[in-house]
C-alpha cells in the first residue's frame, strides 16, 4: 500500500533559495530590499512598496502556535504510517506564518501561543520537512 511516494515540492526559481536554506536546516523568508518588509510564502513583489527587489533573511526561530489540526486519516497513502500527526500553523517572530509538523507534545497540551522552535527533518525523498517542537 505505501509503495506510493510522498509528494515532492515543485521548486521554482522564486522559491529555490527557501529550499536551499531548508536543506541546510535554516528557515529563510523574503525581505524587501527597498522597505524591509518581510514576507512568506515567496512572491514576486512587495505588497507595501511594490518593489521587485528582495533578498532572503534568516528567521530567529522564535515562534508560537497559532492553530493546528491532528490528522487521523491518510488522504495520501504515503502518510498512513505516520498517523496521527499534527499540522501546526505557527506565528514567526518576524510576522509571517509557517505551516509545519509539530512533534514532542501531547494533544491535550496544545494551546494558542505555545512557544516553539524549529528544525528541518529530511523525508524519504530528501525533502526538508519543517518541524516544530515545544521551546521549553
Amino acid at each position, binding site marked *: 500500500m505505501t509503495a506510493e511516494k*510522498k*509528494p*515532492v*515540492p*515543485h*521548486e*521554482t526559481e522564486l*522559491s529555490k533559495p527557501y529550499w536551499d536554506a531548508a536543506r541546510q536546516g535554516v528557515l529563510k523568508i523574503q525581505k524587501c530590499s527597498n522597505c524591509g518588509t518581510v514576507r*512568506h*510564502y515567496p512572491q514576486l513583489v512587495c505588497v507595501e512598496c511594490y518593489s521587485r527587489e528582495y533578498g532572503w533573511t534568516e528567521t530567529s526561530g522564535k515562534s508560537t502556535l*497559532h*492553530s*493546528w*489540526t*491532528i*490528522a*487521523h*486519516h491518510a*488522504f*495520501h497513502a504515503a*502518510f498512513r504510517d*505516520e498517523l*496521527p*500527526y499534527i*499540522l501546526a*500553523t505557527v506565528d514567526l517572530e518576524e510576522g*509571517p*506564518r*509557517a*505551516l*509545519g*509538523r509539530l512533534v514532542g507534545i501531547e*494533544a491535550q497540551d496544545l*494551546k*494558542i501561543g505555545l512557544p516553539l522552535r524549529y528544525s528541518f527533518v529530511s*523525508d524519504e525523498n530528501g*525533502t526538508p*520537512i*519543517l518541524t516544530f517542537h515545544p521551546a521549553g
Partner: protein
Amino acid sequence: MSLSGKGAITGIGETVYARGSTRPALDLQIEASLKAIEDAGLSPRDIDGVIPIGITGAPAEEFIHNFGIEDLKFSAVNPIGGASGIASVQTALSLIDSGVCNHVLIPAGRNTSIGAKAGARIHTMPQFHYVTEFELPLGAVSPAQLYAPMARRHMELFGTTSLQFAQVAIAMRAHAVLHDNAVMKKPMTVEDHQNSRMITDPYRLFDCSLESDGGAALVVSSAERARDMKQPRVQVIGIAEGHPDSPSSITQRHDMTKLGLSKAAPRAFAQAGIKPDDIDVAEIYDCFTYQVICQIEDMGFCKKGEGGPFVENGRLQLGGALPTNTHGGLLSQAHMLGMNHIVELVRQLRGQGGRTQVAGAEVGLATGYGDLGDGSIAIMARA
C-alpha cells in the same frame, strides 16, 4: 446602481444525486440543463449565454453542439470553486442587465466516482500553488486538513465545541431524510456525530461533506421577462462575491476566522435593503460543519464568535428561527458545488419545497464557498 431586482432565476434542474454513478460528467450536465430549460418554459435554442461551473464543467462549445445554439453571445468561467455558482449568477445578471444576453445557462455536473477525489484535484489548480509547494509535502493533502485549523482557532478563541458542529450536521441530515433527492437517508443523532471517526481534528467524519455524482443547472433571465415565464418569479435582490485576505493561503491569513463572505455579505444585504433577521430560509455552503457557523457570523446573523451557541436548540432545523439547508446540503444531500443550494432556494421561494418547504418563505439566501475561503451570496425574493 446595483443588480438588485434586475434578474430572476427562471429555470432550475437537477439529476438524481448518487454515489457510484457510471455516467460521464457531461451527460449529467446535459440532463440537468435540459430540465432547467424546460422548467423555464424555454427551448435549448433560446440560451444565448453559458457559464459552466467548476473544473468538471464542460466548455460552452459542448452546449452549442448538443443544443444547436446558433448564436451564443457569451461564455466564461468563474474559477472560485464552490463560490462559482453564485458568482456566475452575478455574471449572468450583469450580462442580462447590459443587454448582452437574454437567457444564461449555468450548468454543473460531476462524477467523482470515475473522476479525481477532492484531495488530489486541488493540487492541480493554480490557486492552490502555495499549498501544493509548501504544505502538501508536510501531509496537508485535503481541504479538510487545510480548513481544520480555521475551526480549531475558532474553538480556542471563542469556546466553540464539537457538540455545536453536531447541531449543524444533524439539522442537515434531518432535512435530507425528508427530501426526495438526497443521498443520506439515515437519521443522525448528536451521539452518532460524536461517535463518527476523527478525520482531522476537530473534524469528524460527520463534519465532512459528501463526494457525489450528479448535475444541477440554472437559467437566469431578466426580471421583466420572468414576469411572463412559466414559473413563479424568484428575483435576485442582492448578490456579491468576496475574496478573503491571503486568498491562496489560509496559513498566512491575518484573521483565519473570517472568510471572503464577510466582505460580500454586507454588500448583498445593502443591495437587498434587508437585514439578516428578514431571512426566512438559508441555504449555506456546508463543505464542513464549522464553515456554516463561520458563515452565519460573517453574514451578521450574530457576532463573530457567537456562531456556536447560535446553531444550538434546533435553530437551523425546520421550525427553527433560521431553517438552513432544507435539502440536506453538501453534508447530507449531495456535494454539487453549491449549485444544489441555489436550486433549493429557488424551489423554496416558489413554494415547491415539498416535505421540507418552509411555510410562507418569501425571502431567502444562498451562499457559496470556494477553494481557500472565497465567498459568494445571493439574496432572493418571490415577487
